[in-house]
């Protein structure tokens, strides 16, 4: 019998390049379980329906596509804001550059510390929300993350925290391949804000699991980007208790490939989940927002507000779903995804979905793409505003609905200033 050529399996090829970090008993068990989840589905390929608009190749292949470290004189995001700083360099926690974890007064530690302990609260969360998020749609990159995450933060908040927790991701190595996994539990009545910024690595795979208990609140503001050549696949998995609130806003500028998935389960009555994003893409830029919100309780509200400004052949993708389970009455679901195409070479691909199994709900969704309004442009110019300024003003106005989702005024202004700074630097 002739030898059969051994067909290479992309998933096994990728796994062969990875080493599972050593850790304690529960850590080992949850990582092995995650690996089994990954093997059961395999990594996504081009024929995968959920990856129809975004090529997963460079996110899943064994080798990293090198990414140049981008230099400019702009201050890093959130500079000047009072916050607790946690710095990661190419996906590795840098204790020297960070604030002292022991002195924060918070239950905060590195993932490896938590996994080294026999008993830890994070055991009930790590990989658990990710597992819940694997149905009805598989998210293999998140399973890979749970199996191989090499660093991350484990945070438990038991009271309202005034100072935001700020995660700063620096990228220094051209070939870095970072796998980060954060676990956050906001206990009953507690609240916390988490900030994230920076390119992180040439390739980043990041998972954040957030458990928001009854009456608790979680705010998240992320400034993603800067480095043009970086690639990222991120997942947020959130579980919301009764009367809890979850708000997440992401600003994305630059980056050849970004896929941000957000998977939220509203499990307690009267809970509220808002997810928003503002993306500015110029040229070789591909940005994908994939959102899945499940309503599984009564009288909950969810909002998805995603705006993308694209030019010089940039591509924007939106896949957003609202699933209303039987019995989730009085659901108020809102979803809008819009793109502003500044030329005819740019693309926006949208797949808004509603799946509703309750009869007393209000769900709306809308998706549009359009150009800058010529009438508005002329109106501004007729008042003396130069063309480029007028365009920037209209672009910012287009993004405003998403930016306004940020509750904190300082943060909101900070994000607006960065968006206008980017526009000024990217004038054609």
């Amino acid at each position: 019998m002739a030898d059969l050529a051994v067909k290479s399996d992309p998933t096994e090829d990728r796994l062969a390049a990875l080493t599972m970090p050593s850790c304690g008993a529960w850590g080992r068990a949850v990582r092995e379980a995650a690996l089994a989840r990954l093997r059961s589905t395999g990594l996504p390929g081009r024929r995968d329906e959920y990856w129809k608009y975004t090529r997963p190749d460079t996110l899943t292949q064994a080798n990293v596509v090198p990414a140049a470290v981008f230099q400019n004189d702009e201050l890093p995001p959130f500079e000047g804001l009072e916050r607790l700083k946690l710095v990661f360099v190419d996906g590795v926690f840098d204790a020297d550059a960070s604030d002292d974890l022991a002195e924060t007064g918070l239950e905060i530690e590195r993932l490896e510390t938590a996994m080294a302990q026999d008993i830890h609260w994070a055991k009930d969360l790590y990989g658990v929300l990710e597992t819940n998020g694997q149905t009805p749609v598989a998210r293999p990159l998140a399973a890979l993350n749970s199996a191989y995450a090499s660093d991350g933060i484990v945070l438990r908040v038991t009271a309202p925290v005034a100072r935001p927790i700020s995660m700063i991701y620096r990228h220094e190595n051209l070939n870095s391949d970072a796998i980060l996994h954060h676990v956050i539990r906001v206990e009953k009545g507690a609240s916390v804000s988490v900030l994230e910024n920076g390119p992180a690595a040439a390739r980043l795979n990041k998972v954040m699991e957030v458990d928001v208990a009854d009456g608790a609140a979680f705010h998240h503001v992320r400034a993603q980007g800067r480095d043009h050549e970086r690639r990222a696949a991120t997942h947020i998995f959130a579980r919301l208790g009764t009367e809890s609130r979850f708000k997440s806003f992401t600003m994305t500028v630059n980056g050849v490939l970004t896929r941000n998935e957000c998977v939220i389960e509203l499990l307690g009555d009267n809970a509220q989940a808002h997810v928003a994003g503002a993306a500015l893409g110029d040229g070789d830029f591909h940005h994908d927002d994939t959102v899945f919100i499940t309503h599984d309780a009564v009288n909950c509200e969810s909002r998805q507000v995603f705006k993308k400004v694209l030019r010089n052949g940039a591509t924007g993708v939106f896949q957003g779903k609202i699933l209303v389970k039987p019995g989730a009455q009085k659901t108020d679901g809102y979803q809008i995804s819009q793109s502003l195409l500044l030329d005819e070479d740019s693309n926006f691909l949208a797949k808004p979905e509603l799946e509703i199994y309750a009869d007393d709900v209000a769900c709306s969704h809308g998706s549009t793409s359009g150009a800058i309004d010529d009438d508005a442009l002329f109106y501004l110019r007729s008042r003396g505003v130069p063309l480029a300024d007028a365009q920037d003003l209209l672009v910012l106005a287009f993004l405003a609905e998403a930016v306004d989702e940020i509750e904190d005024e300082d943060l909101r202004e900070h994000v607006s200033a960065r968006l206008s700074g980017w526009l000024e630097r990217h004038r054609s």
Partner: protein
Amino acid sequence: MLEIKNLHVKLEEEDKQILKGVDLTVEAGKVHAIMGPNGSGKSTLSYVLSGRDGYEVTAGSAHLDGKDLLEMEAEERAAAGLFLAFQYPVEIPGVGNMTFLRTAVNAQRKARGQEEMSATEFLKVVREKAKTLKIDADMLKRPVNVGFSGGEKKRNEILQMAMLEPKMCILDETDSGLDVDAMKLVSEGVNALRDAGRGFLVITHYQRLLDHIKPDVVHIMANGRIVKTGGPELALEVENNGYADILGEAV
């Protein structure tokens, strides 16, 4: 101040001639009114002067204080002192009215090499001027013209005019969509800006507005030309007899 000579304009897309030789001179300190039936080219004239795309000047010229308007971008014309109060002011969601005003004022100052207005100074001036036009704080905060009534939009145009202090103001059917009280308020706003250094070109269908904004000269426009010019009595003639008589006479 504003000097238009033999202006011929056609629509770029339709190859349709709209203005067929307009001659008009507005002196500083004077108010000129242009009246005329629908489709006579009144609004086209205002758009061409302010620099809107979509029109092609096939012959003639337009100068403001000796500067060739037709060579300038819309924003340069504004900085040179030209202002158009729109017939249909544009709604701009997401841009606050105050931000809009301040951006415009400072852009023009910058273009003229003047110092920008500080936030405090700007606020003081805008509040004062808004008050006389009965524009409240809420209207200043809201996005430009979004959800404004017809009257509010027109008052907002006049506020912009008051803030920008142009040399030459073109009012394109500022009376359309206004009730009597709103027309009075808007007219008072315009009259307050009348001075020896400023010219006005008031485009209207009806004589009504001219009861409030008294013109020095009235022009009748028809079929892309100024067909008759006279004093304020010409407007009354139109009001009493319609355009037919005048047009019959002029042809």
